[in-house]
């Protein structure tokens, strides 16, 4: 068995989702190679090679691969797949965009969101927003293509010593798709997907000004900041902060849900959190059914109090 992993990065830093995908691959077993696609990516390739368990890094550098356009990246991934028994990527928006496209080029279906490995071709994955877990099997005669549900896997640690090889681009740029730009919402707070502590605010905050309360509390805790869909839709915060079925699936040690009712689509995103704390003024809010510690109260008084107590 040999596994090829599609690395995710921003041009200079390897995304931690890659190290998590490596842990999923390690559970499958076999030699692990990593494909890095981009332009001038020596440093990213070196970071990938230093992850525990990585055998070889294939680095394909070309100007048209600088932007993460799925058509271009999937063409490279499919071309590099020859000889591998498994192709894996993270189930981030990047992985979800590229991997199914590559799977179709290879003529196979994909296993989305692998949360557990039962055998080289047997996996568990969530369906119905995580309300059911299904066992799936990939037939013997085809390459396994899948995405790893990042919240289910711990990041592989550093200390590996894989080799790095340049791999020339296999395909030309697709003329029909052009990258225009990326507008990044994130500030310099800890990344939502890797932070140990996350504080999220919901519709109850009422405005982007009031959301400052959440930011201030988060800063006291050194936490990442998330939000419910309602808060994002209302324009209090940017879309990249949404936690849940259609946002980010996260697994911090501590999650504080403030003014969030606990809709099933939101809970899907925090199922794997260590400890869930909920602050809500409605004692019957569904969030309390799953919260480890609940506090019934008005967030506009509770949050400032918490902030003071943490001084």
């Amino acid at each position, binding site marked *: 068995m040999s596994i090829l992993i599609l690395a995710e990065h921003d041009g200079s830093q390897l995304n931690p989702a890659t190290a998590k995908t490596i842990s999923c691959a390690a559970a499958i077993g076999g030699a692990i190679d990593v494909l890095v696609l981009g332009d001038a990516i020596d440093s990213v390739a070196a970071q990938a090679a230093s992850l525990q368990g990585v055998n070889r890094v294939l680095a394909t550098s070309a100007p048209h691969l600088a932007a993460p356009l*799925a058509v271009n990246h999937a063409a490279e991934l499919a071309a590099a797949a020859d000889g591998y028994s498994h192709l894996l990527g993270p189930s981030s928006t990047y992985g979800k965009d590229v991997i199914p*496209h590559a799977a179709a080029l290879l*003529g196979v279906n994909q296993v989305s969101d692998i949360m557990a490995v039962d055998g080289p071709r047997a996996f568990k994955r969530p369906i119905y927003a995580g309300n*059911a877990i299904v066992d799936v099997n990939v037939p013997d005669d085809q390459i396994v293509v899948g995405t790893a549900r990042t919240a289910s896997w711990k990041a592989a640690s550093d200390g590996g010593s894989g080799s790095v090889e340049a791999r020339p681009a296999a395909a030309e740029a697709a003329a029909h*798709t052009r990258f225009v730009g990326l507008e990044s919402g994130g500030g310099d707070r800890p990344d939502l997907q890797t932070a140990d502590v996350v504080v999220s605010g919901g519709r109850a905050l009422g405005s982007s000004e009031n959301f400052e309360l959440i930011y201030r509390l988060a800063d006291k805790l050194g936490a990442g900041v998330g939000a419910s869909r309602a808060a994002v839709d209302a324009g209090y915060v940017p879309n*990249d902060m949404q936690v849940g079925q259609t946002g980010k699936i996260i697994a911090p040690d501590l999650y504080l849900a403030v003014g969030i009712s606990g809709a099933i689509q939101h809970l899907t995103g925090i199922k794997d959190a260590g400890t869930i704390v909920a602050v809500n003024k409605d004692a019957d809010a569904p969030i309390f059914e799953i919260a480890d*510690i609940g506090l019934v109260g008005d967030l506009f008084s509770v949050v400032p109090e918490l902030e003071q107590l943490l001084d």
Partner: protein
Amino acid sequence: MKILVGIKRAVDYNVRIRVRSDGSGVETDGVKMSINPFDEIALEEALRIKEAGKAEEVIVVSIGGDEVQQQLRTGLAMGADRAIQVNTDEALQPLTVARIFAALAEQEHAGIVFLGKQAIDDDSNQVGQMTAAVWGRPQATFASKVDIDGASARVTREVDAGLETIEIDLPAVITSDLRLNEPRFVKLPDIMKAKRKPLDVVTIDALGGHAGNGISAGHHAAPDARSRGIMVEDAAALVGELKNRGLL
């Protein structure tokens, strides 16, 4: 330009999902079924593009047994011009669905195949990307804004890092994210009118869609449930409890 819109019949998003006790699947008997929410958004966007004079025809497509006609009629009532049911009772794999959409796109000379970013039953998030690959055309997934400009489209995409904008030449596949729009409500007269709109039934074989050897689903289990924890009185008690547990 014609726009094909994928409509999947799925368990309504408000239904509390129960796994069957024998592990054979999720209970769907007597459960409310609806259009997959992302598909409703895709259809709304297609209708707006048509209303802006940038498309002539909106065709809703569903692959499944006769029960999917219910969702197709809802799509017609929302404003689609006609509907196609690709008739099959088999359990579908994303690649099969993608091959059908690619074949239909060719047949109909579609300018856009507009799909949902994911079906909320299988949560695969694959069909749009696979359709683009099979069809050999651009893909713009997770769209939160779509501007059609002649033969191309500028699409804003919701990605982990923020909002990405790309430009694609048509024909192309676009998949909708939740913030693309708010779908309209269906009015009673529209439901009556929809009964007279054309709904064609074609066989899956006519579209050569079988992907063959697919991934098989076995046992289904309910997820490990989180249980209700403790309640604390006030902020000070909360901080105390967090300290006790070594979380602060």
